[in-house]
């Protein structure tokens, strides 16, 4: 089991992701530079947070057109696990692998704190077994999830809302959405950072609820 942690110029959660995957989730993980064109030998993809390409034009816009993303697209279409946290979520939306977009927080401020999340979907690789509220930090200025009403209705009808914020909505996301799944359920995008909550020393180990989905794949493989 080996996870590709994709690095773009401006990624800054790549080291956290690699560390959490290796040390706390217990799977193999290697960096893959955005200019690469192959994911041969990898079983899953982690798109880390940060400010890829300085957030030029729109958050995730430039990264979503990077050479490696063609491969990530094919990977996702083959049903392999792809997770994008924070900037990774923005990249997945810009790439069209997930619907909707992330806009500047409603209150305009950067928000960095622990939030409580409820798993709405309970059957996907990423959300299976999340049977209680989980505490995971967020750290973003542009995390207001928006989509049109038709898309929202479809997300609800097909059980594709992975996580909702419990209590206060920290960024003004429609329907309190913190993370969504693609139709097949193998691609997860979320604003919270599961890789920053993988041991109690960090304040919470609840990120493992999400990332342990990868070990289930390893067992099946």
């Amino acid at each position, binding site marked *: 089991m080996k996870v590709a942690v994709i690095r773009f110029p401006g990624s800054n959660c790549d080291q956290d992701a690699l560390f959490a995957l290796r040390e706390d989730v217990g799977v193999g993980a290697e960096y893959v530079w955005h200019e690469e064109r192959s994911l041969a030998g990898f079983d899953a993809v982690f798109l880390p947070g940060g400010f890829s390409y300085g957030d030029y*034009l729109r958050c995730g816009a430039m990264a979503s057109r990077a050479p490696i993303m063609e491969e990530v697209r094919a990977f996702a279409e083959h049903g392999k696990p792809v997770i994008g946290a924070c900037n990774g979520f923005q990249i997945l939306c810009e790439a069209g692998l997930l*619907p909707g977009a992330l806009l500047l927080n*409603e209150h*305009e401020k950067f928000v960095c704190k622990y939030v409580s999340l409820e798993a709405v979907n309970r059957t996907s690789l990423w959300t299976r077994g999340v049977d209680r509220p989980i505490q995971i930090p967020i750290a973003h200025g542009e995390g*207001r999830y*928006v*989509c*049109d009403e038709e898309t929202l209705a479809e997300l609800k009808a097909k059980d594709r809302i992975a996580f909702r914020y419990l209590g206060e909505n920290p960024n003004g996301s429609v329907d309190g959405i913190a993370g969504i799944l693609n139709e097949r359920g193998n691609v997860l995008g979320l604003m919270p950072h599961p890789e920053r909550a993988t041991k109690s020393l960090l304040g919470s180990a609840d990120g493992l609820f999400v990332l342990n989905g990868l070990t289930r794949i390893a067992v099946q493989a």
Partner: protein
Amino acid sequence: MTTVRVYVTLKPALLDSAGRTVAGALQKLGFAEVQETRIGKLIELKVSDYSEEKVKAMCDQLLANPVIENYRFEVVA
């Protein structure tokens, strides 16, 4: 060489939170008549060979995100 100006704006239904802050600042400066401010982008392209179809393709593929934005463009020189 042709200069093309592409204007990208947030769809009217979406809240422009940065624009709202700017409107508040203008009001504080005494411009009480300001009811709303919306911020967009102006992207100026210089192209060796202008084609409306190609500029449209550039907007659709990268310059604007159809989920949240509208765009229009004009040739200025």
